[in-house]
């Protein structure tokens, strides 16, 4: 029982620390907007295909229409978001490393 109480306080202490709050804030600043952006950008495709097929059928270059280009752009947007995330995540790793080093130093599990 004493063990349980001890371990609870340890995690709670880390969760309440300045460093951990910084980590969570740094993550949130990237992940929340990135998630909302990709969901909106993705669902724009089935919504437009479903409700505005005539507009999407407008030809742009030769026989290539907006529908195909928009679908193709989804791949590149997904890759760009993934790339940006990996870049941003280097900061998450740096912040996590400090917390882990400090956390491990406190021993126990």
């Amino acid at each position: 029982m004493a063990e349980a109480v001890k371990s609870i306080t340890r995690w709670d202490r880390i969760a309440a620390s300045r460093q951990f709050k910084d980590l969570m804030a740094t993550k949130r600043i990237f992940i929340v907007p990135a998630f909302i952006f990709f969901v909106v950008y993705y669902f724009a495709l089935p919504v437009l295909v479903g409700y505005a097929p005539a507009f999407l059928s407008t030809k742009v270059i030769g026989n290539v229409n907006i529908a195909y280009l928009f679908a193709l752009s989804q791949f590149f947007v997904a890759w760009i978001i993934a790339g940006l995330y990996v870049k941003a995540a280097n900061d998450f790793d740096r912040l996590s490393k400090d917390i882990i080093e400090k956390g491990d130093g406190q021993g126990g599990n």
Partner: protein
Amino acid sequence: MSTSLVMFMVFIVVTLGITYWASKRSAGSSAYFAAGRQIKAWQNGVAVAGDYMSAASFLGIAGLIAFFGYDGFMYSVGWLVAYLTVLLVVAEPLRNAGKYTMADVLAYRLKARPVRAMASLSTLTVSTFYMIAQMVGAGTLVALLLKDSGIKFPAAVIGVGVLMIIYVVFGGMLATTWVQIIKAILLIAGTILLSILVLAHYGFSLGAFFDAIGHVTYRDAKGQEVVKDFLTPGLQYRPPYGALNLISLGIALIFGTAGLPHILVRFYTVPDAKTARHSVVWAMVLIGSFYIMTTFLGFGAATIVGQDFIKKNGGTNMSAPLLAQALAGNVFFAFISAIAFATILAVVAGLTISASTSFAHDFWTNVVHKGVERAPGEEVRVARVAAFVVGFVAMGIAILLGPTANVAFLVALAFAVAASANLPVIVLSIFWRRFNTTGAVLGLAVGLLASIGLILVSPSIMGIDPPTVVGAARHAIQAKPWFPLDNPAIVSVPLGFLAAILGTLLTKEPEAEAKFNELLVRSNTGLGAEKAVAH
């Protein structure tokens, strides 16, 4: 056609060799279930791609584009973008806080037994439906490709089933991983070759290629010759429900992928969350490149082979192999067919190992025996037996359903269950302090029942056919469908979330809230995460 047989044999011999090699390195739970957590980022990325790009991707999408043009390409888009949910939301927390299965993360701060029992049920449901679809596909394909050698549907299903059981039972996660890596490399190579051949057919002019897509000639249902622009949306999804169907499909794909047990378990095979992250990016590069190239496979089949010919020679699923035959003859046809076979084997092996791991780790050890492994190695032994059972059940059902069964809805079902049952509870468990056991059990149960129930009353199962339609093409229930959409996700995903939230709000579980900080710190920092096993 015996060239096909030779190529199948080469693949089988190589993969069995790998299984033998892996079997000597699969001692212990962590080695068997998670390949010792030693898989490198690029290897896991390629394996995720190999685990994910199923027969539905390679044969199915090529066929859908060949017959429905642009609308088929919509699947390609959703199947890649879905990985952003995996990358941004689930991969790293899962690796940081779990051990072998998705339920590890759920059970962290909730009552282990009810949560694991439900999660295991949902995992087995998703994996089994998905596996049956793959096996019927494999049986049809192999029987068709090897029809001159006298191999029939049941024999083909048994062949695939026995191979996947051998990979999983003897080689564990390590063998499964390498089978998936080899398959992914073969699949990408074959797809690049086919794409180049399609372009070469049009004198390497994208303009000429897209012009040809603008005038695809085929005979419609009444036998009349029609010319259509296949790049225009609406060949498959038409009013009144086309738009809702597309959105519902999108929801199932975007939120279902991050709840597919056989994809999630792959993230336990790498040393840490950073490697898991990099492996998702590797997978996205491969999967995205592949799906962009389905443009050439699908539209190539539509313009060069034509759906009239495909219909008479094995149907939609044969579009890609027939395209290979039209462009480069029988040897290339055999090569592409062997790749399709390898594709199915790698996916069913991944499904089998995730199902048997969940049964052994979640149900046997943690539900039945309350988290105590009674003898060393018991969990692995149980998993091996479970792999046998899962494999035989899937073989049996696939043979019973027969080669002409409509299996597309089984894949839709797998994604819908994953999106409606698994994803809501994973997300809420990681992000919502108040979330508790009642919420998780209710969310899993309602998500599971809602998606299965809605599919049973959807146009996939219910419909009124004229008497001329016979056999497997007839709807199972001859009545007007109660639910108008093929994919239930647009209703069942919100229901899954709603049930999980309501269940939580109706009960109080201070223990679960108290342990939230631990899960929060662990899943976000990797403190105390499972380490790689040194050799």
